[in-house]
């Protein structure tokens, strides 16, 4: 009897404290909810709405239906920007992942000063998207910059790498490849997961280094490669700062570094056409979703899960 009463009392107290906990949690979460509502969901919804309007940033938006989306189809400069962006993604992401994997494998072997090298290779990732590094890049690849000075030492006359449309995009790609630290760290973690017994067994069977890499490392690492690929592709599609700073905000020379997001920015804040810029933002979302979908579909054929 008394035990039952105690139990009931306990349960009541428990229920009360659960409710009290919930309430406290709610208050603590309120700032986050407010942030989500006003800083994330609000602008997303607003940009969707603005995509159907003509909006010059100051006067009230005017509804124009699908006009902005129709313009996407005929906008030649946008098509050029798409070409630049796809080139950027298709060249820089594979190179970046190859560098990341290569360096990760070097660092995976226990060597002296490993922690130092790991940080040293990771550092560009922390700095790479910053304005300061982009400015530095501008100097390095300038007519009188470091690259040309080094080339001068071996008797080659360099050119203005950033100010020549045939090489400007390449400097941006090099800058992106250089920031391979984030995928590298993930690769390192992945390499550690591969049981060494596989390699030992393969070595006993007489498999060489290349065979071990192809038959053991790559298949077992494929989920990690896939993860990095999806992430870096999305990342590369959204890159903005480097192109903006390196080209001085113009996407020049001759639109050769006009990546998609820079074009979007210019439409919004250069031509004061925020409606079109919003439509472009949603179009980019569609493109990224499409590419990611293709990635997932293709993954069925090459990603190997060792369950």
């Amino acid at each position, binding site marked *: 009897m008394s035990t039952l009463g105690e139990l009931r009392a306990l349960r009541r107290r428990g229920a009360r404290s659960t409710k009290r906990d919930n309430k406290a949690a709610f208050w603590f979460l309120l700032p986050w909810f407010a942030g989500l509502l006003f800083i994330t969901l609000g602008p997303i919804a607003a940009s969707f709405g603005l995509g159907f309007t003509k909006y010059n*940033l100051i006067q009230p938006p005017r509804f124009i239906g699908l006009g902005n989306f129709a313009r996407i189809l005929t906008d030649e400069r946008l098509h050029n920007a798409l070409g630049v962006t796809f080139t950027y993604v298709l060249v820089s992401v594979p190179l970046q992942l190859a560098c990341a994997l290569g360096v990760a494998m070097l660092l995976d072997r226990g060597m002296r000063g490993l922690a130092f090298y790991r940080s040293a290779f990771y550092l560009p990732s922390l700095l790479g998207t910053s304005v300061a590094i982009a400015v530095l890049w501008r100097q390095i690849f300038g007519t009188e910059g470091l690259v040309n000075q080094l080339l001068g030492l071996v008797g080659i006359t360099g050119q*203005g790498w950033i*100010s*020549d449309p045939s090489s400007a995009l390449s400097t941006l790609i090099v800058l992106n490849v250089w920031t391979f630290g984030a995928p590298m760290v993930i690769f390192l973690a992945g390499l550690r997961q591969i049981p060494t017994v596989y390699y030992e067994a393969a070595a006993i069977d007489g498999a060489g280094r290349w065979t071990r890499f192809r038959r053991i490392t790559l298949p077992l690492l494929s989920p990690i490669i896939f993860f990095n690929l999806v992430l870096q592709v999305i990342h590369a599609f959204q890159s903005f700062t480097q192109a903006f700073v390196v080209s*001085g905000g113009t996407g*020049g020379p001759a639109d050769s570094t006009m990546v998609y997001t820079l074009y979007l920015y210019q439409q919004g804040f250069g031509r004061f056409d*925020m409606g079109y810029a919003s439509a472009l933002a949603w179009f980019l979302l569609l493109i990224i979703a499409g590419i990611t979908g293709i990635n997932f579909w293709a993954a069925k054929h090459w990603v190997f899960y060792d369950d």
Partner: protein
Amino acid sequence: MRSRHVHRVAWAVLLTVIASLLVACSSGPGGDDELSAGPVTLRFTWWGADDRHKRTQQVIDLFQKKHPNITVRGEFKDWNSYWDSLATTVAANDAPDVIQMDELYLASYAQRGALLDLNTEKKYLNTGDFDAKALATGAVDGQQYGLPVGLGSYALVANTDLLAKYNIPLPDDNTWSWDDLKKIGEQVSKAGGGSVWGVQSPGFSDTGGLQIWARQAGGSLFDDKGKVTIPPDALTRYFSYILDLARDGAAPPPSITIEKADGTLNQTAVATNTAAFGLCWNTQLTALSAASGQKLKLLKLPGEAKAHAEYYKPSMFWSVSARSKHPAEAALLLDFLANDADAAKVMLTDRGVPANLKIRAAIDGSLTDTDKAAADYLNRITVSDPPRVTPNGASTIETILKRHVEDVLFDRAKPDQAAKAFITELQADVDAAR
């Protein structure tokens, strides 16, 4: 019961938050514009070279001494980043109170309602000493959105030290043509041996050269209604001329030209003594001379002997944000900038030869040699009526021009194709802004 109570509280909190945010957004400036007795902070933004930043800060200090309750926070940038940041701050409802405005953007910002009609602040802002014609350049649709600061005119600057070094005589600017400029440019480049070029390539710095080119051909960039009216063959010749300068070696190779054009005024070829001739505004002479350290001289533009295309351009305007919380104090600052002799003696001709006639007389004695030369230049040239204000939507003209010049220089388009595309694009931007 309890949980319902929690829900109700949550909704109440949420609604209060939303409501207070909405209220915060809609609270604009007070209706009656009176000077505040309490402390007021004004934000004041401008573009320019280092020299201007120093002078402007000195003027701000003078103003604050006279009005101890007003703090002026200066925000300065170079030309390119200035317009990016102005567009974003205006869109974010965070525009600076006092804005240095350019002719290119005046109509764009005014017609979108971002600028204050300065006539509403007449109580604190005296415009009585301004030349009426100069004052009119800051009006759009009959409202005074900009107070012209100074007058400028397009000019050709020549580095006489460099010419003397190479024993090349200064050309006669009363008779010379664009071909003469190209020829003498080639001479300089030859003498410079790959480190100094004759002409800093036009077509990048601003649209003044294009406007002059159109006017020398008997046309203009825009007509009264804002339609793009530059004759296509004149524009084709403009692009061909720029291409020839680079091809024949009068101007540096395209990639060097582009690199320099993306920098500030102090990094241009004329400022770094790597070009002997360059197009500029007469008022830039002082800043260019300071950067170059050599003797620079303003020459009349080539081709002016035949057709007088020169005009007075308001170098820039003072504007006040339509959403300024302190329009009265902002007007007071404008009044000080425009009418105070002490301020003018600091600024001199950095922002142009003052449009205020009384001030122009007041600074006459304190002008340095380069300032005097800039002022004298205005007397030497023959000017005709000013062109129409750059229409709303055409503020993009410089980025469009730059891109097409690059296309031509790198052989991605023929001059006539570039001319056609330029006109179509610019017209589309004007139409889109309607």
